[in-house]
């Protein structure tokens, strides 16, 4: 009889422990939504970024760039400020179109999600609002220790009909704060393309959102194809003032380089 009770208690304990071992789909989506929401601003968003690309046997590529976002309308614009030779070059997302502009030629070109931004190993999605829950289907992998941090590990697969730079992701999410600490991106074939680390998460109060807005203070991207290449993204300033109504247009971007 005693052993029967012991067995029942053990089974109940195991059953109770199950949610800690594996997260179901709704929990995963809730987690992704939380990650998306905290990085999404209700109003406008502007950030000054520093990009640095290191490659073997090549001079460093260094850029300063301003990111403009109007998350309510899914609008994004990247505008390069430094070095001088890059000033006025930009990227503009309008609907499903991604445009690049070069003031040297006065030309707009339609481009793809896979296009490298400013000669670095970054993509449009590194600077846009987070849409993990909208764009990917998650599955739970397990728990893992990353340095001193306990993390939840998730696999994400892109939903059908959505164009992203990498269709398969693996995320290491801090259990305590629910911030992404590590992100691996894979091609459809399963080949690992990039490993990114997010060692600094910053938050500031947004008037328009009436809540805290989170952003990664630093992203370190390691190229998994060309192993000696790496990219650093630093968020220097974040400005949450309202932007011009006509800012996310070709005409506005062109006007910045006149």
């Amino acid at each position, binding site marked *: 009889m005693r052993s029967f009770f012991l067995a029942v208690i053990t089974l109940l304990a195991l059953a109770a422990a199950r949610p800690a071992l594996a997260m179901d789909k709704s929990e995963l989506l809730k987690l992704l939504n939380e990650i998306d929401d905290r990085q999404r601003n209700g109003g406008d968003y502007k950030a000054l970024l*520093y990009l640095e690309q290191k490659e073997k046997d090549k001079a460093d590529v260094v850029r300063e760039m301003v990111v403009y976002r109007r998350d309510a309308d899914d609008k994004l614009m990247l505008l390069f400020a*430094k070095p001088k030779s890059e000033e006025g070059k930009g990227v503009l997302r309008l609907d499903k179109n991604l445009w690049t502009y070069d003031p*040297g030629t006065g030309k707009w070109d339609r481009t793809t999600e896979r296009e490298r931004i400013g000669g670095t190993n970054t993509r449009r999605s590194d600077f846009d609002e987070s849409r993990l829950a909208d764009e990917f289907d998650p599955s739970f992998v397990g728990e893992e220790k990353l340095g001193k941090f306990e993390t939840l590990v998730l696999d994400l697969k892109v939903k059908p009909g959505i164009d992203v730079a990498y269709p398969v992701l693996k995320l290491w999410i801090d259990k305590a704060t629910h911030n992404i*600490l590590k992100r691996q991106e894979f091609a459809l074939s399963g080949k690992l393309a990039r490993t990114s680390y997010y060692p*600094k998460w910053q938050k*500031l109060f947004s008037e328009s959102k009436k809540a805290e807005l989170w952003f990664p203070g630093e992203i370190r991207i390691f190229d998994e194809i060309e192993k000696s290449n790496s990219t650093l993204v630093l968020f220097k300033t974040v400005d949450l003032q309202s932007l011009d109504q006509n800012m996310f247009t070709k005409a506005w971007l062109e006007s910045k380089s006149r």
Partner: protein
Amino acid sequence: MSRLGMLLQIAWRNLLASPINLIIGGLILAGTLLFVVVGGLLDSLNDSMARSVIGSVAGHIQIYSSKSKDELSLFGGMGGDPELAAVTEFPRIKEAVEGLENVKEVVPMGSSGALITAGNIVDVTLEKLRNLIKARAGSADDPRLARLTPEALDARISATRRHVRQIIRVLEADQKKALAILKDQAIDPDVVASLEKVSQDAFWDDFDQDPWGSLEFLENKIAPQVTDAQLMFLRYLGTDLDQFQQSFDRMQVIDGTPVPKGQRGFLIAKLFYEDQMKLKNARRLDKLRDATANGRLIASDDELKRFVKENRTQTRDIVLQLDDLKTAEATTKLQAFLKSTDPDLTALLSTFFDTTDENLEARAAFFYAELAPMIELYKVRIGDTLTIKAFTRGGAIQAVNVKVYGTFSFTGLEKSPLAGNTSLMDLMSFRDLYGYLTVDKAEEIKRLQQDTGAQTVTRANAEDELFGEGATIVAEATAGIIDEDKTFTGVGRRLREDDLVKRVYTDSEINSGVVLNAAVMVKDPSQLTATIEAINRLSEEKNLSIKAVSWQQASGILGQIITFFRGVLILAVLFIFGIAMVIINNAMMMATLQRTQTIGTMRAIGAQRSLVLTMVLTESVVLGVLFGGVGILLGTGVMAWLHQRGIPAPNDVAYFFFSGPRLLPDVSSGNLAIALVIILAVTLFSTLFPALIATRISPLRAMQADE
């Protein structure tokens, strides 16, 4: 002298006496003939290819940085373009190398490639409309549009709007067909609604109230529905165009004009212009005409049948180029020509392009006379500005605008894809695209890095450094202010404008900057090796850090082709002569044994061994000279016949190796002399052993044999 005469008499008599000698002679004749003809052909091929390579891109010698990771390969290697280190002290190098006695001049160069997107027809037309509206608003990028009167601008805007509306009608018709086949659920309702909106008069009536908004709607909702954008890989050589035109005298400008001295500009390789930039239907008509003029028949030639089929099915490029008025005009003209009442232009064009051997000429003539004036035959017209986007050395994308002044080709190499696919660009634009980090730019980047003070984290230690003990990941931030006016000063634009506004560069400015390689033209090509050695010595003495290589080495795999064939020839000749030696040796042994009695008798009546040896060897020499001579004569005859007739290039690629449409082979006296020497050496060597046997025949044995 009398002894030599006697030996020659004996040799002549024996020559005709034995049929074995005729076999040996035949072998000698065939070997010599082969050597003269194949050797002559290879020499001619080598000379032709040298003319092609030297005359089109390489010059006699190429120099490049000795710090380069790869070897120079002008036509690309197995792994794409070689990685060459930049030559940064070109003026000093040019001065030093041009100081050498045999050097005529040094032409700076650098080659690269870029993908250029022509954009789909809607993108291109909308861009045209955007530029016209910008010009009307007084902010034209294109100075030609800025010069137009308001009336002229309005007329062009109106025509372009009509063109866009006609494209929308075509897209609507496509959508209707697709809906009939695919059912509603397969088509994005947003796409259907967008097309519906822009097909309404209301959209166009309100267009001018918000032209930028209307344009963006068309650009973002309608243009992506057309997926006919074409990517073209453009290969170009950046050079001092003026010097290039003078040094490479086979280069000829075909359309347009040369780029004015010292100015930025682009010359498109004519073959590339025709193959890649011409309207595909027109290009296929040209090819059909060329092929049928050379005796090929559409009725029996699979490739020509394919051209006709593609012309019939791919008429969209033409239909989308026409506005409503031109569509009506083209339809009327085609109805009259085809005697048809079909109102559908696509169907009419499909019937029109159903060309046969009988109607091809008439239809091609009609196309060029009646339809071509209504459409753009080329994606880029002479005088247009071409935007070239390329990856810089650092991996960033850099774009430049260059004016297209014309097209060019190299005389005799008009059809060669190897010589006809590389266009020419001014050196200043090339340097912009190459993205070499100047001292100023490097300092600016260094300052940016110092101001930011970012720490380097290595891949191996990343996780420990970023997430190890002491790491905190969350921090409070304070909002900052990003002032656009301070951040974007317009300095980049001003820098570009200062540099680009109709500037004429001096020779010194063109030469002072980075180049990747340079062609060295020499006064006496026969001194090539000595000059290469002299340049390499000079580089060491003056610390120029350059390496000089011959045109052949610089052409990479291409340059090795002749060396490969020459190797094959040498092996083949060695093989043939090896077999010939064995046969001649055996035959001579037989001939010698047949003459045992004669030689024995000669020895009995006092002939010395040396006389017997000389006799047999003289016979061989006479045999070699006689049949080898006939072989040389026959070979020379064959070569003269080939020279007169010419060997036609079997395909376009062979144009480059033949240095023109026909190879006109020549045979050199040097080749003939070598052939004779080799054949005599082989004959003498093969006869040496039988001759020694002959000297050992004793009179006694000869008499015993008789008994």
